[in-house]
């Protein structure tokens, strides 16, 4: 019998984590190396390591047990026996999950590393499922899409882009402190208040993303060789900070400009 244990901190309430643990087929689908899940005749899942890693796989029939604080997924395979126990502790705004994995059977003494990956992946899967939105996102049609853009959250950017069209694309040499002049130039032929401008150097080492309403910066991502800065403008201080990074942008960039369609 091989036993391994880990803990993950989940930025979600216990109820949310329980919702994920209750849907055992969905939860097990998100374990690493799971290549098959069926509920046709009980809950059956196949775990198969990538061949180049280690030739190993087994198909487990799971029974799920629970008490007040833990869930136990007990899998009986053809050549091995796998038990995953998840114990939850709730804190004020987050949940700690202690996860224990025990394995008995074929390859027991060779599978140290893969079992660790499996355990870690179960923890990460539980974390990302619990923290993810309940359903696939729906593109927002709200008039605030531009205001909600935060470059730390790619989906907020996707929400904006999916309702935008590119109005300019070209190579520009930006003088230090001159990015806003380029923005003015781009604006000359545009009626739109909201403008998204992004740029990247041809070697990919530096880039920026900038969202503006009229002359006001709403959000910024600034990337140079050694740093990434994301600013969501919410007050004077963050506005100053965004301007500070904008003034640092310098060099030859491939620049794309986008405007919202349909009145964002």
């Amino acid at each position, binding site marked *: 019998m091989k036993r391994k244990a880990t803990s993950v901190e989940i930025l979600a309430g216990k109820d949310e984590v329980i919702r994920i643990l209750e849907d055992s087929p969905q939860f097990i689908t998100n374990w690493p190396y799971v290549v*098959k899940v069926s509920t046709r005749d009980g809950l059956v899942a196949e775990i198969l390591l990538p061949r180049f890693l280690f030739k190993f796989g087994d198909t487990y029939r799971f029974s799920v047990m629970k008490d007040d604080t833990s869930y136990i997924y007990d899998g009986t395979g053809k050549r091995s026996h796998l038990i995953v126990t998840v114990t939850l502790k709730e804190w004020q705004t987050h949940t700690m999950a202690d996860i224990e994995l025990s394995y008995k059977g074929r390859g027991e003494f060779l599978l140290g590393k893969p079992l660790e990956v499996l355990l870690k992946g179960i923890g990460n899967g539980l974390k990302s*499922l619990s923290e993810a939105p309940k359903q696939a996102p729906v593109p927002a049609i709200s008039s605030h899409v531009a205001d909600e853009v935060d470059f730390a959250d790619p989906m907020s950017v996707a929400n904006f882009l999916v309702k935008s069209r590119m109005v*300019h694309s070209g190579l520009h040499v930006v003088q230090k402190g001159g990015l806003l002049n380029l923005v003015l130039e781009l604006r000359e032929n545009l009626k739109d208040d909201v403008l998204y401008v992004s740029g990247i150097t041809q070697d990919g080492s530096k880039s920026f993303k900038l969202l503006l309403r009229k002359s006001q910066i709403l959000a910024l991502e600034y990337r140079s060789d050694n740093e990434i800065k994301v600013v969501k403008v919410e007050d004077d201080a963050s506005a100053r900070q965004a301007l500070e990074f904008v003034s640092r942008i310098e060099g030859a960039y491939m620049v794309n400009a986008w405007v919202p369609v349909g009145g964002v």
Partner: protein
Amino acid sequence: MIRNMNSYPLYDDGKHRVYWLGIEESEDEKGILTNQYLVIDGNEAALIEPGGFFVFSRVLKNVSSLIPPTQIKYLMYSHQDPDVVAGLNLWFEYAPLAEVAVSELWVRFIPHMAVLSAGRIIGIPDKGMEFQLGSSKIKAVPSHYLHSPGNFSFYDEKSGILFSTDIGAAAFSSNEWYLFVEDFEGHARLMEAFHKRYMSSTKALRAWVRSIRRLNPKVIAPQHGAIFRDENVGKFLDWLESLDVGIDVFENEFYGE
């Protein structure tokens, strides 16, 4: 609802790597799930069938955990269907140095995706072409009329994996999902209706099978459904060869005697 946020490595020799990038079902397309794939060679990557808005956040997250998206050299689109190209403007921004590869038939439609191509579009000629990725090659293999009139499969020579666009698509039932085909006969039942109606011509299909047999891929990975490997590659090609599809099946039904 099937949702797998993980990627799964299909090939890794240390320098050349191929990944399947996870899967999720949206409310509107029950059963028909889209597969996205990533090929990495050294510090260059190709994203195959990047997919639409609904899968963007997962695909971006999985790609980013494997390679910075600025190192994506190609966004490869087998054809012009929305389930393939709908996220084009997102990927245009998030893979800002990538070129978009698609049949030259669809190049003039790209502006309808709200992007200015600005020299970033590679129109693949009807006979196909090769793409250099790091020290490896990806071949665009003609797959026209299967089902789109301008359609390509993509063959990664180093791993022997053929990305077969909609050819091999399967619709899962709600109580089962699997990444690799094990029971071919059972799986064929999930593929048949789709191929009969969506694929245009039996002649086109048989020509494709002939050209794929010459390539001799180790693995066939479609845009929907499950992946074929080992003896199932041969079984799948045999099955396709014996299938009548498209206008050859439906001429009478649609147009009368």
